[in-house]
Structures are given as structure tokens and as C-alpha cells.
């Protein structure tokens, strides 16, 4: 690829990122985290609250000391 093509791609990517990551409808309580070019870690706060509640219900009672 020529240098011009790299620049064009970079320039278009900047505008794309601004939109995809900085714009659009935001759904409250959804958090998305991306690390470099790798995984997308997503946490739904509503799902988290209910999974904490059910995990606590499942825990065995503390052993008698």
C-alpha cells in the first residue's frame, strides 16, 4: 500500500472511532472496556447485581470455628 492509502485509512478510522465509541445511543448501566486490540470486556450492572445476590444465596454457611 502507498503512504496515501495508510493516511486515508487512518483518517477515516479516527472519524469511525469517534462515532462508534463516543456516539450513538447509550444504554445506562452497560460498561464496555477494550484493551488495546484485544478482548472486549463487558459488564452489565443489572446482571451483576442479580448474580451477586444469587451467588451469595448459594454460598455454604460459614464453618463453625
Amino acid at each position, binding site marked *: 500500500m502507498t503512504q496515501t492509502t495508510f493516511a486515508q485509512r487512518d483518517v477515516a478510522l479516527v472519524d469511525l472511532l*469517534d*462515532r462508534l465509541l463516543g*456516539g450513538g*445511543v447509550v444504554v445506562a448501566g452497560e460498561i464496555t472496556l477494550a484493551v488495546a486490540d484485544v478482548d472486549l470486556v*463487558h459488564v452489565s450492572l443489572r446482571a451483576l447485581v442479580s448474580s451477586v445476590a444469587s451467588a451469595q444465596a448459594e454460598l455454604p454457611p460459614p464453618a463453625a470455628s
Partner: protein
Amino acid sequence: MIDLLAITDADAPPAAPVRLIRAGGLGALCAPASSEPADSDALWRHEELVEELMAERALLPVRFGTRVSGEDEIAALLAERRDEFAAALEHVRGAVELAVRVQPSGAPGSLDAEHDVHGPLRALARDTSIQPGDDLFRAAYLVDRGGVGVFVRAVRRLQERNPGLAVLCTGPWPPYSFASGPRPS
């Protein structure tokens, strides 16, 4: 888990793997949660998908990476924010987003981008959103589909008339900057 792509008020069923989950006159365009890494290729594929969907219906693109646990959550979202989404859809119907960025070109000339570039361009748009950033001036314009050609020609003319500025215009994009609907004027 479900990836949420866009909100719409059209009934038309999308092509697989996209699904339309409907509630109260609105719909959410969704796909099964993607396990692929979020690199730039994935983002371009996502963009292509949203643009294909937009070719056939008015929609509000959802921020990339938004994932919900199930259909109940989606139905609740659509019910909770029905009025907001309906107004925003009306606002963007038949229009696309064009992005404009202005930097100093290094050549002599006025640097008043807001007056010399934004002034003329906003008259050609349904709505505008000036955005913070590293540029001298940066904004998104909501333009009628049929008005894109006129807008782009205007950008080129403004570039010719303003040698002190470097003017870049990209698009058309789905209305990411106008997904919250009309701005108070």
C-alpha cells in the same frame, strides 16, 4: 448475551444474523454477542452492517460494544425510553451524518473556521453538533440524503476559498451524533 446494534421504528425484518426485537411500536436490531476481538477490522464490519440496515429503515445506532443479557432487558429499555427514541427517530429519518474537521493548513489565511466553514455549512443541514477534539474545528452535520451532494460541493468550495484551512469531510455515517434527538436551539 446479545449485541445491541440499533433502535428503529420499522417493522421490516432484517437479514440473519440480525434480529428485530419489538416492544411498543419500537424495535431493537440485535445480533448474537460476538466473541471476536474489538480491533479495527471488527469495527469496520460493524459499521458496514449498521449502514446496510440503515439503507432500509430509519435507525438510531447504539454505541459499539453495548451488550445486554436478554430480550427482557431490551423490551424494558424500549418501553422506558420510548418517547425519547421515537422523537430521535423522527429527527433523523431520511438523513445521514457527515463529519467535518478543520485544521490550519500552514498556508497564510484566516483561521476562523467557525465563521467561515461552519456558518455556511449549517445552513445546509437539518441539525449540527460541534464536538470537542484536537482539531481547530470539528462538527457533525445531519443532512438529508438528497442534500449530501450539495453539502460536499459546498465543502470543496469553502476549502478553495480558505487557503489557511485544511477541511476534511467524511461520511455518510449513521446518525451517531444525533441519537439523542433534537437539540434545544
